[in-house]
C-alpha cells in the first residue's frame, strides 16, 4: 500500500483567531482507501478536510500529497490531485448548463477541446448524468445537482476526492444514490475521504473511520470498531446508527451482535436462529 496523503503533526489556526482549530493531527491515507471523517461542527473536521487539498495550509506541521508539500507546491498541482466537493451544491455551480459546468475545470487546465469533451462525457457517465448535458443545473433536483458537483470535480481527474457532507439535505433516495456512487468511484480506483454527520451512511460505505473532536484525532480505525466505541462517541455527541444501538441493547440481553447494517444484522440473526 502506498501513502497518498499524509499529515504530520498538523496544527492550524485561522488568521486573527487565537485558538487552534487543529492540534497536531497525524493522519495517513493510503491509495485506494475510502474513509469517513466524523465529528461535531466546530471540532475541526472541515478544517482538516480543507488542509488535505491545499485550500488551507498548515500553520505548523506538514501535509504531503503524493509526497508534495502543500505549503511549497503550487496550488494547482495539489488541486489536480485532490478534488473537493462542497456541501452546498449551489456554492459550487455557476455555469448555465451541465456540460459547461463539468467542462470548466478541464478547460482551466488548458486541455484541448477534444480532451475536454472526452472528460465531460467520462465524468457524466460515471455519476449517471449522461443525457443531461444541455440542462440548466438549477433545473436539476437536489440529488442530481449533487451528482453534477461530483462530476465537475471528477473531470479534473483527481486521484483523491474529498466530499464535504454529501448527504445533507438529501432525501433517502439521494442518500442511496450517493452511497452507490461513492462505492463505485472507490472501486474505480479513487481514494475517497467523506466528511459527514450521517452515521448510517458511514456504516454503509466506509471501511475506515476517523473521529475528530476538539482539534484532535480521537479515534482512527475500522468503522465497526469506531462506531462501537460508544462511550467515546457519546462524549463527542455522536449517536451511532439505529442498528448499532439495537445491537448494543441486545448485547445487554445476552446476544452477541456486532452489526453495522441491516443486512448484517439479518445475517447474524439467521445464524443465531439456526445455531442457538
Amino acid at each position, binding site marked *: 500500500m502506498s501513502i497518498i496523503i499524509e499529515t504530520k503533526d498538523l496544527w492550524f489556526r485561522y488568521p486573527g483567531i487565537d485558538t487552534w482549530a487543529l492540534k497536531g493531527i497525524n493522519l495517513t491515507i493510503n491509495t485506494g482507501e475510502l474513509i469517513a471523517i466524523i465529528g461535531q461542527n466546530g471540532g475541526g473536521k472541515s478544517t482538516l478536510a480543507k488542509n488535505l487539498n491545499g485550500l488551507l495550509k498548515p500553520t505548523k506541521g506538514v501535509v504531503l500529497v503524493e509526497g508534495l508539500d502543500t505549503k511549497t507546491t503550487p496550488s494547482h498541482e495539489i488541486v489536480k490531485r485532490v478534488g473537493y466537493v462542497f456541501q452546498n451544491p449551489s456554492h459550487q455551480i455557476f455555469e448555465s448548463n451541465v456540460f459547461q459546468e463539468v467542462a470548466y475545470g478541464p478547460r482551466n487546465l488548458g486541455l484541448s477541446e477534444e480532451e475536454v469533451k472526452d472528460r465531460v462525457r467520462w465524468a457524466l457517465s460515471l455519476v449517471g448524468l449522461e443525457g443531461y448535458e444541455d440542462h440548466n443545473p438549477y433545473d436539476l433536483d437536489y440529488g442530481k445537482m449533487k451528482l453534477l458537483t461530483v462530476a465537475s470535480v471528477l473531470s479534473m481527474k483527481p486521484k483523491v476526492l474529498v466530499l464535504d457532507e454529501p448527504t445533507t439535505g438529501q432525501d433517502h433516495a439521494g442518500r442511496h444514490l450517493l452511497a452507490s456512487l461513492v462505492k463505485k468511484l472507490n472501486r474505480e480506483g479513487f481514494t475517497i475521504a467523506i466528511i459527514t454527520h450521517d452515521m448510517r451512511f458511514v456504516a454503509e460505505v466506509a471501511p475506515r473511520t476517523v473521529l475528530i473532536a476538539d482539534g484532535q484525532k480521537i479515534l482512527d480505525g475500522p468503522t465497526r470498531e469506531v462506531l462501537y466505541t460508544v462511550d467515546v462517541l457519546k462524549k463527542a455527541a455522536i449517536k451511532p446508527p*439505529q442498528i448499532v444501538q439495537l445491537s448494543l441493547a441486545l448485547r445487554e440481553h445476552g446476544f452477541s451482535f456486532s452489526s453495522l447494517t441491516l443486512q448484517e444484522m439479518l445475517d447474524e440473526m439467521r445464524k443465531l436462529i439456526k445455531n442457538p
Partner: protein
Amino acid sequence: MGQRGNEKVIIVENLTYAYPTSKDFVLKKVNFEVHRGEVLAILGPNGSGKSTLCKSLNGLVPHFYGGRYGGKVIIDGQEVLNTSVSQLATKVGLVFQDPEDQISGLALTVWEEVAFGLMMLGKPKEEIRQRVEEAIRYVGLEGLEKRSPFELSGGQMQRLAIATVLALRPDVIVMDEPTAQLDPIGKFEVLSVIEKLANEGSTIVIAEHEIEEVAYFADKALVLFNGEVIAYGPVREVLRKVDELKSIGIDPPSVTELAHAIKKELGLEAEYPITLEEAVKIYSELLGVS
C-alpha cells in the same frame, strides 16, 4: 395549546394544485384531517409536494403563488381560499426548512425577532413582553435574548424560528423539514422542542426525513409521491408498509425494516417495532424463544 379531541382543526379535501409555471399538478386530490392535539407527519422524497402542501395550509398557496387550485383546505372552520394570509398567520404558523428564510433580518436581537410578529399585529407592550419571554423559554434560548440572530448556531437559529411562530400562539404549527439543514446537535435540539410541543398537545404538521425520530411523536403519517397520497393513517400502520415505502425511496426506521426482512427472509413472524425500545423488547423475545 388545547387537548387532543375530536375537533378537526385541519380538513383537506381533494386538494389539487399547480404553480403558474408548472406543467403538471404538484398536488393531486389530497385528502386528510388533523384533529386538535394531533401530530401529522408528511413523508415523501424531495419533489413529491411536501413543501407545497405545507404552504397550502397557511395560504401562501394559492394567495401568494397563484396557479391552478381545486378542492378545499379548511382551517378552524375557515376556508383558506376565502381567508387572507394575514388572517391565517395567527391560525397557522409555518416553520421553514432554512431558518435564515424565517429570520426577518430587521431585528437586531433574538428578543426583537420574537417580538417582531406581535408588534406587526399591534399587540400591547405588556402582552408582547410576556409572550416573547414565554416563547424564548419554551425553545430554551434564555440568556441569548440580546444576541444577534445571525450569531446563533443552526440549531439555535431554527429554535428561534420556532419561537417566533410560537409567540403568535397559532392553532396549528406547520414545519417543513425543520432539521434538514442542521448538524446532529442542532437536529437533536430542534427535535426535542418539537417532541415537547407534541407531548403538550400542540397540533402539528411536520414534513421530515428523520423518520426514526418522527416515529416517537407522530400520531399519523401521510405519504406523498408525485403529488399523490400513497398512504395515510396511524403512523404505525404507515411505517409497516415497508415495501411500498421503499419502492418510492423512503426508508422506514431500520428496526421496522428489520422486522419485515426477518419475516420475508427467515420466515419468522414478529411484531413491527417503530422505535428502538420496542425493537429491543420484540427482538430479544423473538431470539429468546427460537
